[in-house]
């Protein structure tokens, strides 16, 4: 028996009929057609499938598609806006935070949630915050650097925005 599921993915509304057992990650990849979210294990260890569900990092292999009913989902494809990379994407590029790239979308999504919760994490906090994701290529050295660099950039951007709004307030 199929169930109706309505979701918003990267700001676009989707309605499908799916099997109740369909995993959210397979829904995103095979039904919605967004293949940037990857699968790297059978047991929810690797974090390659991490997305944001209502802004919170979730391994999308741990949810059924039907559980996403009415939720706002953000995948890696939703991070770049108007042709501009998200600061985390830019930082992973600048700091060589990826090699084969397979785990990268999961890391970027997990890091996005981390920085949302803690905009200025220490190195230890970054390592703690991303312990649900595995990478076999980078030794994590440049992943840590990427997140640090993104945090700086986002903080700087925020500072600029608040300066600007302060300036607007004065005028």
């Amino acid at each position: 028996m199929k169930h109706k599921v309505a979701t918003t993915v990267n700001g676009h509304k989707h309605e499908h009929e799916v099997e109740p057992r369909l995993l959210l990650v397979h829904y995103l990849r095979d039904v919605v057609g967004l293949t940037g979210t990857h699968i790297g294990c059978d047991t929810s260890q690797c974090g390659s499938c991490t997305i944001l569900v209502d802004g919170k990092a979730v391994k999308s292999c741990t949810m059924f598609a039907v559980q996403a009913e009415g939720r706002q989902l953000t995948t890696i494809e939703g991070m770049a806006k108007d042709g501009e990379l998200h600061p985390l994407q830019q930082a992973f590029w600048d700091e060589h935070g990826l090699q084969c790239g397979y785990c990268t979308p999961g890391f970027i999504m997990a890091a996005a949630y981390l920085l949302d919760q803690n905009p200025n994490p220490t190195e230890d906090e970054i390592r703690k915050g991303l312990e649900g994701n595995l990478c076999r290529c980078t030794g994590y050295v440049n992943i840590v650097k990427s997140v640090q660099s993104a945090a700086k950039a986002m903080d700087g951007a925020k500072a600029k925005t608040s300066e600007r709004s302060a300036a607007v307030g004065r005028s």
Partner: protein
Amino acid sequence: MAVTTMVGAKIHRREDPKLITGHGSYVDDMQLIGMVHMAVVRSAQAHAKIVSVDLTAASKAPGVVAVYTARDFKKVISGGLPVTESLIADKKQTPNQFPIAESEAVYFGEPIAVVLAESRYQAADCAELVQVEYESLPVLVDFEKALEKGSPTAHTGAPDNVAWDVNFNGGDLEAAFKESEVTVKERIIQQRVFPISMEPRAVLANYVPFGNQLTVWTSSQVPHFIRLFLCIGLGMPESQIRVVAPDVGGGFGSKLRPYPEEYLAAAASKLSGRPVKWIEGRTENLQATSHGRGHIFDIEVGAKRDGTLLALKITMLSDLGAYIGVFGALQSSLAMLLSPGCYKWKAVHGRAIGVLTNKMSTDPYRGAGRPEAAHLVERAVDLVAQELKLDPADVRAKNFAEDFPFTSILGMVYDSGEYQKSLDKAKEIVGYKALRQKQADLRKQGKYLGIGLSTYVEICGVGPSAATAHVSGSLALVESSVVRVHPTGSVTVAVGTHSHGQGHATTFAQIAADALGLPYANIEIREGDTGDTPFGYGSYGSRSLPVGGVSINRSCQKVVDKAKKIAAHMLEAADEDVVFDQGQFYVKGSPDKRKAMGEVAFAAYGPGLPEGMEQGLEAVTYFDPPNFTWPFGAHICVVEVDPETGEVDIQKYVAVDDCGNIINPMIVDGQIHGGVAQGIGQALFEEAVHDPETGALRTGTLLDYSIPGIGEIPNLQLDRTITPSPTNELGVKGVGEAGTIAASAAVINAIVDALSPFGIKHVDMPASPDRLWKQIKQAREHSNGGKEARK
């Protein structure tokens, strides 16, 4: 005009934008109209007679398209999987492997049946319904026991379990031991590990029935190999098969051979007339993708009291699994050939015995034999130092090879090296002298700091055909390239390697841009598709740059040579009077009148060329290197071990590596980072464990098998020395495996150094808290017992 030199520059990778935005294209990201999903029914026993396979229920499952067993595949697949059996001259036996078992299953996870269904969930359901009746046979897990007289055999009817037994001898061992003032013996275990690329294997095969054309997309390091062997296995001409390795999510050696599933998916497409997709699950990946390492080394070392190394005797048993890996023998050879390390010895004798067991094959895993060699020789040096109470850095210094090219005691010619320089640099960075003092002070407080050195050399750039052909079944491991300059000056470079994370699209373009004097942005690298790249041997053994990259450089030189003739014609000068400098041709002495490479490219396709010259501007090269390349370096690991818990805390890790000239320092550093992490993983965490009775995999998921997480790898301090390779004109050596080759010995030497006050002389891998705690407890009981005995 300022011309930027690309080689040596930190260029951000051009492959990244698509990968960081979710637009990569891995095999599972592709769908074809009419595609079905394949699931593989695997043996639930490590060794059993297959009495029957009942397909009744499976054939009626919802969405099922077909169910196939060996009988069906025999109609379309002839022969077995390839094995480079002749790598070892004294081979005893090479079991033939058909891609799917028919009457006897010889390892846990061996394919027994294949189902095709309309969806991946239906395929998984359907596979569950296939009923296999087994009759259990004796299971060989312990490969030392498998050598005992009267042992059951891994394959019914085999004479014994010995696949090969071969010697690698250099020097007079007896004399060298006679001259020795001390000897030490140790058993060193190289546990079986899983390579674990984050993307498991994946195949999509599309056979076009009446056109007799087959396209196979596969997550592979070696698309041309796969095509070569599929054409043999399927009895199709190579011209009818196209193999494409798209974005590949890591490999680490585990994707450099054809696998049963590539044959099965292609054959299933041929049998069903539908495109067939097979995506490996992680559990399958651990069962049925090649494993790494898996050896026991018994070593005996002889030295003088002053630390001069003299004699090394090695017996190496290798746990090959049920079938010899496609390159299984290569790892044994490399482990033996590199066992002298970067030292002068009077004699090294090695005996390598390959043993068949009821497990998945072992095959190359990052380093393939070289981490094993480095680990054993670096442990050997430390054992000598500990025995003689000498500083391990001094023992190394005393024995380093110094004059290059250096011929090792096993006859290998190391092209260039400066071993002392890299060790000195590493010692300086880590603050070696102060650390030794700190170690002594901490010991007084009951704290156990350990400093581990690993001064490795490796053999890369596989390889010169003269050295490899007789051991690779007549494969000349050359590498190919085609460089085609288009009329408007953009360039397509097609090469036979395939990047799976190494950034070839960037570094190869850097090489071509400099060689052709054209902007980097003009250069496009094509890899991974047999449809538009020349036959190549692929990416492994740190060979892509020193063989593939050099091939590109040579093709570029050929293009420049032709362009020079055209430019001379345009400048109305003699060829020999024309100079090519940073993309500009001009007559010697008159640099003002010049022709840019772009202009010459356009002219190359036009009329009015020099007499007898054909249009076009392209060249092909098959580069057969004159020697291997020999990267080296010094790693120092500093650990603190808590004797109460056995926990290891890596406090510092310094790596000074020398891979010759560097194309892109950012990518080189990244390779070292990842390599070191994998070496640390093997040293501390990883072990593939089989049930000793049943041969079932106990570490069958990433829950049970621990690869290092982000909290477990410290920040690595990297530095380098640069000693160009004289083996090729780029002076490059390769860097893909260096970190892994060096790291496990550095970590284990540090742990042993930390625990030496307990009288501990050796620690096996993985040095888990459990193992160390037991070893410390035992050592303490031993020394207490000794004290009591003296009372």
